[in-house]
């Protein structure tokens, strides 16, 4: 259950930051820092609301996800792509190496890797490509049977 909450937090962090960054036009730093400040301050001053594991990991997963939401809409503009990057980030975060524990910037590196992985699939980059991709997929699945030629 805790793992699911961490995954959901990363995805939510990415999506909310992206929404504030692009749709509300706050810009990347404000979108990431302001919302993270609220969440981190809440868990810092109310540490007994959730389990110690979640109290420790939710703010970290949220700020990591928020780095994904800082992406420019020119590079990635679909919510599906952002959510997928959040999912990949949570996978990296949950399995991160002990070698780099405590290194500043490790979360940003994980976020950057997640975005690069999503950007390798052009289908997720823009809504237009996604629509074309979906249409092609539909055409593949629901292929009309070729009309039989009438003799004569």
């Amino acid at each position, binding site marked *: 259950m805790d793992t699911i909450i961490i995954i959901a937090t990363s995805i939510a962090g990415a999506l909310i930051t992206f929404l504030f960054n692009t749709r509300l036009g706050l810009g990347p*730093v404000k979108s*990431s820092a302001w919302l993270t*400040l609220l969440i981190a301050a809440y868990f810092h001053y109310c540490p007994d609301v959730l389990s110690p594991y979640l109290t420790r990991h939710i703010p970290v997963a*949220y700020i990591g996800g928020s780095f*994904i939401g800082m992406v420019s809409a020119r590079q990635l503009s679909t919510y599906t792509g952002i959510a997928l990057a959040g999912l990949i980030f949570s996978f990296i975060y949950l399995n991160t190496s002990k070698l780099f524990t405590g290194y500043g*910037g490790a979360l940003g590196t994980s976020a950057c890797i997640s975005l690069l*992985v999503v950007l390798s699939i052009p289908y997720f980059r823009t809504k237009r490509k996604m629509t074309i991709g979906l249409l092609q997929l539909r055409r593949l699945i629901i292929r009309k049977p070729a009309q039989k030629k009438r003799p004569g």
Partner: protein
Amino acid sequence: MKRKQYTRIGIIILLFVIQILFLLAIFRENAHSYLLAILVASLVLLVLYTYRKGNLHADGHEFESYKIAVWVPAGAVCSYFLNQELGLGPVLAAALTGTLASLLTYIPWRKAYFQHLPPAIYCGAFVGMSDASVATDITFVLTAGCFTAIFLVVSKSVLKGIGGKPGTLAFLGVTLTYILIYIFRQ
């Protein structure tokens, strides 16, 4: 012109290598689980593919102004102070530093200059997120902040608009400082 091109190639290779090393460390620790190992190996291949084929970098190579980059160590020290000295923890420290930095955009004079500062200060704040076992003192943070500032200057046209780029630069700065200290202490 050639120097700019070499710098561009150099920083791209550096960013790629640090990200692959990061993934390989996960791969090494999880080699016992085939599924996890395959997933990490796939991530490595997809990152490699994006670096080769993706439209990640701006066409020409430009350098960030040093007047902006000097704020990176300032962000690092501020975040380190909030994190280690005041005991707020890494996330709250970085978020508070970023929030304070974002308020600079509301200063009515020299708007063009102040608008560029929050990303640099926020980038520095990631250096200050380091644990006490890594960033042992303020000298470490300042050195890592200076390295990160240099990486920020040379990487202006690289990974344009990709979230997590400032974090990767901070990670490079921290890792480089850690390695240098390790070598000098031997």
